[in-house]
């Protein structure tokens, strides 16, 4: 089969790819410590622990609002740093899948442990950016 690409075209494709990769690296390398997000993660951690501890409606709704705020905050920075948004969405997904009427069951305990770990990962991510 005949190769229809001229050396010039191949160069253009290669150069275009290199520019794209460089831009991707530049964009993904723009993550920096976000003190507002860090504070929100701390608040969320406390309120989520309280919600899983009591399973009371008020506590659950407070934690739910914290998570919505966390996702909204992370959303603002997603163009230059998408990682915190994905982490916030993952935390929210774990929370949203919890049946707070099943406190004391195995699944409830696993949810509680996994969401605590997911929040700690997001906090550590910010800690690492601070260094």
């Amino acid at each position, binding site marked *: 089969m005949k190769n229809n690409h001229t050396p010039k075209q191949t160069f253009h494709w290669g150069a275009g790819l290199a520019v794209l990769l460089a831009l991707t690296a530049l964009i993904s390398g723009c993550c920096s410590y976000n003190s507002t997000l860090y504070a929100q993660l701390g608040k969320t951690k406390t309120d989520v622990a309280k919600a899983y501890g009591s399973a009371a409606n008020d506590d659950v709704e407070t934690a739910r609002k914290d998570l919505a705020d966390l996702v909204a905050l992370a959303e603002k920075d997603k163009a230059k740093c998408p*990682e915190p948004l*994905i*982490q916030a969405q*993952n*935390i929210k*997904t*774990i929370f949203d*899948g919890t049946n707070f009427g099943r406190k004391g069951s*195995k*699944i409830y305990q*696993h*949810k509680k442990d*996994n969401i605590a*770990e*997911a929040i700690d*990962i*997001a906090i*550590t*991510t910010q800690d*690492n950016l601070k260094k």
Partner: protein
Amino acid sequence: MATDWKKIIDNLPNEIPDTAKAEAKNFIEQLLTNTDDFAKRQGQKITLYLAEYASGELTTEELNECIRDVGLLTDSYAKMQTVQAKQKLQTVALGVSSVLLKEVFEPLQK
């Protein structure tokens, strides 16, 4: 005891193909022997979830939910790693979704 989780997968209904079961066992085994402590811990969690499923402490839906959470956690953990480690962990997160959930555990819910 250490290999009980393999028997649990072997004993899943026949509608789950043997190849899918074999892939799932291989995937979990790789997690358990992973040099990354986080990945190893996720593998240990999955075997615990399987044991609880087999003893009736978790329903099929709950087993799926727990394994899905492991995938989300791994995805989050990957996001804070350097490029090379990130790729490896993204592959693990993808494996949780494709090898375990789609091929083995989600079909159990139908």
